């Protein structure tokens, strides 16, 4: 396993890392955003998939200074991405990749200071979610903003979306978003509704465990997975009710990010501030389901079959536990990149799917 991990020290703590999407073929460029530095920056790295030569390291092909910590990065198409900052702004940037080894960043739209405290300065923007060109951002100020890549003026703002700091957000449908806050309260918002009230509210768990990340299943968007500050994974089926279907105690500390494999949703990847990177494989469960050897209904999602499934979840660790938090990971084909607080990025090649 070890030889498939490739680490490179980058000299700044990485808060977010994303592959630059490329249609149908493996992406060879990823983007990192740093945090906690005196001057933070966005860096574009070229890492060609080369099986023979093990000594190729990711090399920088473009940098862009960033005001405040990079709190989230999301690509909305193959060369445009949205970045949120701890100074309360969201920016839409375009990568101008004229030459293979030289890229430039161009600022398309900048929504400055959209997150702020009514009494006392700017508020960090903590999360972003995108649905095509729609962007929804949340911040410590409890505001929820709907933006669109096409205009500078926010489409909608829900002022007191939460009385606590919002920590994560994801789109359920084109008009529905789910937010999670510092105390684990999850709210579903209907963006078309004229009132500033959530469509439904539920808790991550009975205790005051903050929600650190939330993600829907790529093909079954009603199935939502959330990571908690205690390292647990919670699964909901939002079609039925708002009680968790499954609660898995997973990592030993905050789940910092979770990502489904975009093309193979039976694979899930999680990382945590305890320095772990895990690969969850549910394909054996799905296979059993297909063969009809178990009691699952045919089309059932294994994540939603709590009791039976728990014992058959296959979990692999992708590398030995790191001594510093792993903040972010992203999946592309069979390569995974993750960014950590030990100022390194690690790329896992040939992850067995």
């Amino acid at each position, binding site marked *: 396993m070890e030889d498939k991990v490739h680490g490179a*020290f980058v000299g700044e703590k990485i808060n977010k890392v994303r592959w630059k999407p490329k249609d149908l073929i493996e992406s060879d460029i990823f983007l990192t955003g740093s945090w906690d530095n005196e001057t933070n920056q966005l860096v574009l790295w070229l890492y060609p998939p080369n099986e023979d030569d093990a000594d190729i390291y990711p090399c920088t092909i473009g940098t862009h200074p960033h005001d405040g910590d990079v709190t989230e990065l999301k690509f909305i198409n193959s060369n445009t991405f949205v970045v949120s900052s701890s100074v309360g702004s969201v920016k839409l940037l375009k990568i101008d990749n004229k030459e293979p080894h030289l890229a430039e960043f161009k600022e398309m739209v900048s929504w400055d200071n959209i997150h702020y405290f009514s009494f006392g300065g700017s508020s960090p923007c903590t999360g972003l979610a995108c649905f095509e060109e729609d962007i929804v951002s949340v911040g410590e100020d409890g505001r929820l903003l709907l933006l669109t890549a096409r205009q500078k003026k926010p489409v909608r703002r829900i002022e007191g979306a939460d009385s606590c*700091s919002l920590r994560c957000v994801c789109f359920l449908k084109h008009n529905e978003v789910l937010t999670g806050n510092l105390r684990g309260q999850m709210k579903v918002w209907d963006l078309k509704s004229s009132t500033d009230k959530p469509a439904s509210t539920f808790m991550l768990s009975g205790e005051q465990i903050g929600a650190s990340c939330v993600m829907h299943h790529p093909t079954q968007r009603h199935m939502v997975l959330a990571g908690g500050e205690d390292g647990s994974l919670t699964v909901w089926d939002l079609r039925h009710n708002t009680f968790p279907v499954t609660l898995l105690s997973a990592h030993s500390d905050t789940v910092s990010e979770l990502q489904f494999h975009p093309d193979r949703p039976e694979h899930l990847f999680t990382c945590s501030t305890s320095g772990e990177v895990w690969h969850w494989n549910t394909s054996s469960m799905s296979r059993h389901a297909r063969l009809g050897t178990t009691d699952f209904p045919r089309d059932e999602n294994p994540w939603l079959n709590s009791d039976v499934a728990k014992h058959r979840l296959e979990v692999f660790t992708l590398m030995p536990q790191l001594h*510093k938090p792993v903040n972010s990971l992203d999946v592309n084909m069979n390569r995974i990149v993750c960014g950590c607080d030990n100022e390194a990025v690690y790329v896992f090649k040939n992850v067995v799917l």
Partner: protein
Amino acid sequence: MTDRRSSNLTYRHTDILNVSIFIAIATLRVRIVIKFTIRVQHLIDRGIYDLCLWRLGSKSYVKLKMDKARTFVIPDKVCRRAGLSAVWFPSNKLAAHAYRHVTAHSQDKYSEFAPCEAMVHLVRFDVMLFDPIARKLINESNGTFLAGQKLVAQAGGTDIRGELLKLSRQYRSIVRACLENLQSEASKIESSRKEVCLELVVIFYNVEFLWHLCEILYVDVIPGDVVLPQIMEWIKFHFFHYERQAKGILSGEYGSSVLDNGAENEPEYWNTIIGLVLQGRLDGARALLKLHSASPSEPFKSVDYVMRTMPQYSVFGGLSLTEFNMRWKGWQNETACKLRAGTFASRKELELIMKLMVGDEEAFLEVKDQCGTWYQFMASWLLYTEPTVKSFDLSYHAHQCIAKFGGISRLKHSDLILLALMESDLHQVIRLIEQTSENGWFAAHLTNLLHHCGCLKILDSQQGNQSVSLATNLHEQLLLNYGTLLMSHRSLWQVGISYLDHCSAEGRAHIEVLLPTLPLGSEARALKIIQVARDRDLHNIVASTSKIMGMRSYQQRRLGNALTWALRSQDAGFATYLANKFLELYSREGKFHSLDLLDNLGSCMLVSDRLTFLGKYCEFHQLYHAGEFRDAAALLVSLLASRLAPKSFWMTLLTDALPLLESNDIVLTSEDTYELLNSMEELLGEGQIPDFGDTPGSNKLTTVQDQSVDTNSVVEEKVKLIRLALARNLARSLNHEGCLVD
């Protein structure tokens, strides 16, 4: 402190001014006078003027080196006129500002400098290690360091020398990678960064050079203690000038005449061969000699033979030490005979080489300059006089060779370290390394490695029996210094913590002091700091950090978030305070803030009684609005009966009961009504009625008598209404209950 944007001050670089700063270091309880030398240079950093750096050293260092005081200029007009004062800022910073002495007798008026732009200048040490390229080294070596500690912890007494050697090599490869990065950076740019990079290259080259020898002498276990082969490797690795030249000559780079006229026409031909011989690279020397136009002649053939047959000691060569020595002596005698017989007399250069190879002192003195340094000289000398020298003899030979190179007084700093290494005086080694300028990285990591190898135990035996082990002390002190230094960096505090973690005696105390001084910033950063504190069971830091975050939210008037932080740290006092604020706001505005939070408190409302009441009261409202009057009524009564509600709030609760008492269906039983009556009487009996609504912001109790007539009449009216409703409900409920019994 002026904001950068609003200030239009420009520094005049000609401003030169001598200032003495008196700094009282509270922790040391001494006054140290530091003279700042003048040099105008500044860095503007995050809106604060940072005057960058200039090595003041650690506190103790300042004390020791007072005579080497340096002066810096603070470019500030006000300071120049008024004088200057400074205080220590957490972790290695000085905050300098204009100062005027004020006593109890000073007049309270504007100073003669007003109006002026008052600024605080932060002066901090220039830490070379924080250079972007060197930062990679910090983090990478941190991984190796932690791997080492884990290894030792798991070994439990088994021999891990082999593993430690691997770690030592890993450290060196990290340094070499850093050197490579620095060199490529230096070759790339033309700006001032180039200078910094080259300076760092020199420092880290030296580090690697010294570490390598240290590894040979102390970390690597060499069977039979025959260190010379390793030392030769070390010399060959770092001094490759002659090898490069030889390659040049062999590949014909020096001219095309080699094959026609012989290579001896190359100007550096003989020097290169002698250089190769001195480093023991005999294969190279032979290859070069073959290029000589007279190489087929007899003297050349003899030299080739001598070189070919020189016995090489190798641990795995199958020869015992005595056997090797015999062969070696035989070979040298044979060569000496040839020399005496004049075999090489026709060729002066060959004769010199042969003399070197039999260890002729005069010949060695002749080529002394070609060796460059005393240690290269020593290695060559030992190679041809005592190839099986033991490491404890190195000290003697080192002194001999140093004497030939002008004595101890001409040694440079790194030479002194090498000498101390050969003398096995590790204490001196570490002391000297500490004075090198890479900010403690080298000393901390090397000492740690040596500590695990058990090399530092020698220090203790030398120093006699002391209650506290000197070695452990030294080791820990270096780690503490390095860890503390990292903690002073905005971003590297997590790395710093991992060093302090491994200081058994004082590390925890240091973390306890340093962790709370970190600026919190965003919640994400605060959560990371809390996580670090929680992992180390530093509950008071978890609590205080949560409290700060809570207070910050409170000051931003975000009661909901403040309460969340209070609940996270189970802070009952703060939760009570916030619950009171919520109730106060409710009394004033008639609606609750942060209902999304209050309606979903769950079991955590049990943290404080007041919060429980608040949660339950919100629940009452929820039930009431949902139309579940019976449950609402029961909850209301239980709130009063259990005395959970604060007295000041009873009147509000009783008023809330009014519509329930007056509802068409009977929702309050006679028992409930008695309970309400009881509460009412108790409240009125004490003569205390709260004055909510009149004086916003206070919830203190005032007596009825003190109230204005207006308020009094309102309250009296309310009491009357409640009494009436209670009486009517009592009648209805008794009637109803009576019917039920029948």
